[in-house]
């Protein structure tokens, strides 16, 4: 126990001095503790600049230390950034460090403190953090001034795509402050009671005058704002290259990229630095710079091009040997000499570069294409022979050169255009003819194709035509000025040999020979159809004779034009087929081809005819169909005027469409559907020459619609209008057979009657002779027998009067209403007055001729040819008063004669003739006599009387047909 107490005391005694030592160390400043920390603000870069020193370094040599920096905002506890800064330090050395704040430093108070630690393995005992320096506060708000609103940062310069934080200080306690970026409101967050911030991400370049950011603080006052200058990003330098043209000056070029100039930032500057010579040159231009080659035979160059603006630097390096960057200057004194039709000599010079040789490239161009290319080594004067050129052809000759010792780049071209001289035409013309027989000879038109440029060898001036009569040796020549390509000749009916040549300024072409035979030998050759394709017409033929020297296919490019556009193709003797192509071929146009065989005597004879379409089309129009032979069961369609030749395809036949109400198609037709029509019946005619068609098996008295359209191998014709057809009734035909003869018969009878009417009149109702005009009178007068005269009726004394009684009920009984007149009942039989009784039997009037006059009333006439109208003798005038007045009488006379009897009322029954000699039929009570009494012994007609149903008040006139009314007056006699 005592031992334990001793050990404990000893241990405490050892620890006590150690603790005392440690207390001494801690009371003194540690050697690495930062001292004299000063913090300042750089508003331009929003930087906190720190400055401090380390006085108590234990050693004099330079030591590696790590400084830890802590930055707080608004209050010390709000640490916004902590970081280490490694550096070397000597005793009493003042250290600097800078921190860029995201938030403008004017908007918040910042606090900074630092501490350090030795970062050197040689002093492990100092490898512990020093004490923190005291917090250093930075606040510039008090120095801002007396304004009530501040917006930061002011006129800041950033690169495109940067993130920028803005803040404002408002001392006016305004809460409704709105801030805008180019007029667009931004979201604002409050940082402190009077400080707010807003953040802009990836700001774009807007304009060199900067992006406007402003806040509306007080209504009616100017906005408070700032400008954010957003610079385009300085691009990497591209295409940096240097070269010399004379080994004296280097010319360096590059692609500068976008200009980053702003109102507060000039365009990026370019500086050229050469490492070997340590020379530097500020370039005046944006994309090129010159460098004077040093005179000390510097071979190698190492250039650094640096582009720089306020925000960024870009560099690019280039190392080269001077003689490897030689590009000669453009050759000079370029000439073309000794130009003829196929050759020319070109000469040139180059600017000398020391004693170097040059490699030159020569090119010959024609129509934009290189036709010759060659390389030539030379020293100073170059020469090259251009050969194998074509006569009368435009060329471009040019040359460029490169440094001979080491190829870098060609110089620019130097060249000149020239034209070779002409030469005589190379080939014979391609000639063809068109021969038309005219009375007494031929009309020959010669055609030829212009020589190609290759064969013409210059400008063709004229064409020579030599015509030689083979039957009667004679010849004449013609000269046709170019560019004509045809001429017409009128020749007699002989054989002619025609030679055609072309001439230019240097000579004449070989002759092209053609022979016109005295006998055209036109043959009737059947035309054969060929089918064309997009590639043309494939034609083949059979050789006729074995000694043909060739064949010619002839056609017209524009067969519908009067000029036709004659074309031909010459083929060799062993060719029996060809494909005719032409850009002029159009779909729907029929082309006719004639194949000629050319004999050894250059006589062309027609071999075959072909016709076809490059592409057949649907018929362009439909035929106009005529209708005929219409019966109740059929009709015939005809379209004989329809021309199949003018159609855009070979007509293969026709479709006949029939529409009817029948569900089933008539025989020969099939049900089909047209494009825009209801179901139809269709009949196909396969023969294009058949242009009539009879539609049969139709229903009588039915309506049909019919339509005819042609078709080609492509399609049918266009839709058209259906023609309506109505079949007649089945019996109509028969009726016509019966009725027509009847009508003819009646007409015949009518005509006969018309011509025989005088005869009829004489037979039926001859004129009543006037006794006063009788010839008897003249005889009497001539005999002067004054005692003889005609008895006047007034002088007659009646000897018998029969009174007829008529019941009242019958007065108003209309005649014939529901009954015939024969059915009309009379209470008493009608009694007639026998005014002129015969001596023998007054009651028997004897045979008498009865005559009826229809003039007065048709109704009356209907009673019968000799009807006697009963006259009620006791009818009072009042009851007959309808005719009492003349007006009533006239009205009655004006009545329509077509009135039926039944329509005639009693009052309307106006006039009836009564025979003067009519005698009543005794015992006939009920009806008029069906067999009227025939007056006996009536040798002649008696005076007719009109008997009105009422008393006529007007006196009879002498001329009136009513003169017989006088009888009515007699009626008064028996009153």
């Amino acid at each position: 126990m005592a031992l334990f107490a001793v050990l404990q005391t000893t241990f405490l005694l050892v620890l006590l001095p150690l603790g005392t030592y440690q207390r001494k160390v801690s009371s003194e400043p540690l050697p690495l503790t930062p001292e004299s920390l000063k913090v300042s603000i750089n508003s331009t870069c929003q930087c906190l600049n720190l400055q401090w020193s380390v006085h108590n370094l234990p050693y004099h040599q330079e030591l590696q230390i790590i400084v830890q920096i802590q930055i707080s905002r608004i209050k010390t506890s709000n640490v916004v950034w902590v970081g280490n800064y490694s550096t070397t330090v000597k005793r009493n050395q003042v250290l600097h460090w800078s921190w860029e704040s995201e938030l403008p430093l004017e908007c918040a108070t910042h606090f900074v403190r630092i501490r350090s630690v030795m970062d050197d393995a040689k002093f492990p005992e100092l490898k512990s953090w020093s004490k923190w320096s005291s917090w250093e506060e930075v606040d510039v708000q008090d120095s801002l001034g007396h304004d009530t609103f501040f917006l930061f940062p002011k006129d800041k310069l950033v690169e495109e795509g940067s993130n920028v934080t803005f803040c404002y200080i408002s001392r006016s306690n305004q809460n409704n402050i709105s801030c805008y970026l180019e007029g667009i409101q931004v979201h604002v967050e409050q940082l402190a009671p009077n400080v707010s911030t807003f953040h802009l991400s990836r700001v774009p370049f807007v304009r060199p005058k900067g992006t406007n950011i402003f806040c509306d603080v007080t209504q009616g006052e100017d906005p408070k704002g700032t400008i954010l200058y957003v610079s385009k990003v300085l691009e990497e330098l591209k295409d940096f290259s240097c070269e010399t043209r004379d080994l004296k000056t280097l010319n360096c070029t590059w692609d500068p990229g976008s200009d980053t100039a702003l109102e507060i930032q000039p365009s990026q500057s370019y500086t050229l630095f050469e490492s070997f010579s340590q020379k530097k040159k500020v370039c005046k231009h944006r994309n090129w710079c010159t460098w004077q080659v040093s005179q000390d035979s510097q071979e190698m160059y190492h250039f650094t091009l640096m582009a720089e603006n306020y925000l960024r630097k870009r560099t690019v390096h280039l190392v080269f040997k001077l003689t490897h960057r030689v590009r000669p200057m453009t050759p000079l004194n370029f000439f073309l000499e000794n130009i003829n039709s196929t050759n020319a000599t070109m000469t040139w010079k180059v600017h000398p570069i020391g004693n170097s040789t040059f490699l030159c490239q020569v090119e010959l161009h024609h129509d934009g294409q290189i036709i010759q290319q060659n390389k030539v080594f030379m020293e100073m004067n170059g020469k090259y022979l251009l050969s194998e050129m074509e006569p009368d052809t435009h060329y471009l000759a040019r040359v460029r050169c490169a440094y001979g010792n080491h190829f870098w780049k060609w110089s620019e071209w130097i060249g000149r255009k020239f034209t070779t001289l002409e030469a005589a035409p190379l080939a014979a013309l391609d000639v063809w003819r068109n021969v038309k027989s005219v009375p007494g000879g031929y009309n020959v038109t010669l055609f030829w194709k212009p020589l190609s440029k290759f064969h013409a060898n210059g400008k063709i001036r004229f064409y020579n035509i030599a015509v030689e009569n083979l039957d009667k040796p004679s010849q004449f020549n013609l000269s046709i000025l170019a560019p004509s390509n045809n001429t017409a000749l009128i020749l007699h009916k002989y054989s002619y040999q025609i030679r055609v040549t072309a001439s230019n300024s240097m000579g004449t072409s070989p002759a092209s020979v053609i022979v016109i035979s005295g006998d055209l030998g036109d043959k009737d050759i059947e035309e054969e159809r060929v089918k064309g394709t997009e590639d043309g017409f494939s034609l083949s033929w059979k050789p006729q004779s074995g000694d043909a020297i060739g064949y010619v296919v002839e056609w017209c490019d524009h067969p519908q034009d009067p000029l036709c556009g004659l074309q031909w193709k010459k083929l060799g003797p062993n060719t029996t087929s060809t494909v005719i192509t032409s850009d002029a071929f159009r779909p729907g146009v029929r082309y006719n081809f004639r194949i000629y065989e050319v004999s050894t005597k250059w006589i062309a004879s027609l071999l075959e005819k072909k016709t076809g379409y490059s592409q057949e089309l649907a018929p362009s129009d439909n035929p106009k169909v005529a209708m005929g032979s219409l019966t109740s069961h059929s009709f015939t369609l005809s379209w004989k005027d329809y021309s199949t030749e003018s159609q855009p395809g070979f007509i293969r036949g026709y479709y006949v469409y029939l529409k009817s109400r029948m569900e089933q198609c008539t025989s020969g037709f099939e049900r089909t559907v047209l494009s825009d029509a209801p179901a139809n019946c269709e009949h196909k005619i396969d023969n294009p020459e058949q242009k009539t068609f009879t539609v049969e098996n139709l229903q009588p008295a039915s309506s049909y619609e019919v339509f005819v359209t042609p078709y080609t191998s492509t399609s049918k014709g266009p839709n058209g209008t259906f023609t309506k057809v109505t079949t007649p009734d089945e019996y109509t035909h028969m009726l016509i057979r019966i009725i027509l003869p009847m009508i003819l018969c009646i007409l015949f009878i009518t005509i006969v009657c018309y011509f025989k009417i005088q005869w009829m009149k004489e037979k039926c109702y001859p004129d009543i002779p006037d006794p006063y005009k009788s010839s008897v009178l003249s005889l009497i007068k001539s005999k002067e027998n004054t005692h003889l005269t005609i008895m006047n009726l007034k002088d007659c004394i009646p000897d018998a009067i029969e009174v007829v009684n008529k019941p009242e009920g019958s007065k108003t009984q209309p005649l014939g209403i529901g009954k015939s007149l024969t059915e009309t009942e009379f209470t008493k039989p009608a009694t007639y007055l026998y005014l002129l009784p015969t001596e023998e039997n007054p009651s028997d009037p004897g045979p008498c001729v009865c005559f009826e006059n229809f003039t007065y009333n048709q109704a009356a006439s209907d009673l019968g040819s000799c009807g006697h109208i009963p006259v009620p003798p006791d009818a009072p005038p009042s009851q007959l008063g309808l005719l009492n007045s003349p007006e009533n009488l006239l009205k009655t006379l004006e009545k329509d004669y077509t009135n039926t009897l039944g329509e005639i009322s009693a009052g309307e029954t106006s006039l009836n003739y009564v025979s003067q000699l009519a005698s009543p039929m005794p015992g006939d009570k009920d009806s008029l006599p069906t067999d009227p009494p025939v007056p006996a012994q009536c040798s002649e007609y008696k005076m007719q009387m009109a008997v009105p149903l009422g008393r006529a008040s007007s006196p009879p006139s002498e001329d009136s047909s009513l003169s017989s009314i006088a009888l009515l007056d007699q009626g008064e006699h028996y009153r």
Partner: protein
Amino acid sequence: MQVQLIRRTLLGLVLGLLLLSTVAMGSCSGKYQVLLGQLQQQAKIMQNTDMLLDPYIRIQGLDKLNHKEYCKERPGAFPGKDALRGLSRWGFLQTLNATLGLVLHRLAAFQQKVCNLTKDKDQDWKTLCQAELYIRGIRNNIFCLTRLLNLNGSSEVFAPTWAGPRTLPWPTPSPGAFNRKIDGCKFLQGYHRFMHSVGQVLGEWEEGPSRTRRHSPFWAPQGRAGRTRPSRRAKRPMPRGLLPP
């Protein structure tokens, strides 16, 4: 936009002809009515904001702001119509000449910056850059009219403007670029209003060079004998605003 372009083109043509009519002849017209008519026409054209203010606003990007509200002339920046009417003809012309000189100076500074910056010159920029020539045309007519009015004995003639290099120093920048933009807008608004007043006052000069004393060319010159350019320290209404760069 196309109508505006045509309008500007026509304006440019008219102003160009007016300028050429003075410059190309190499000497001043001796006809008072001709000179006065040209000045009136030039003033009428230059009161149009299409000439300066509108392109300025677009170039500065101020068209995104409610510029009609804040882009108002600062009171007193340019002489008012009544102040101009109160001047003698000589004084009026000198005031006008001095004001235009200030506008030219500010405009030239602005153009120099813009012209160097903008490679792809748009129509606004071209209009603004041509405005300098137009104002020089006005100043030439002022010079000629002043010389015509001065033929009766006054030696107070200031020299015509010339289109040589601009050597005047860059004005002291105001606190912030944004404020400078706004100030420039106000300045040009005042300028156009000023030219409107100038046109109205010139319209009252129809009678001819010899008038009452108040409008006499010899009224108001004090202590300027022998000078050929108008003094910037003359005690007459002068513009106080500055066009921003």
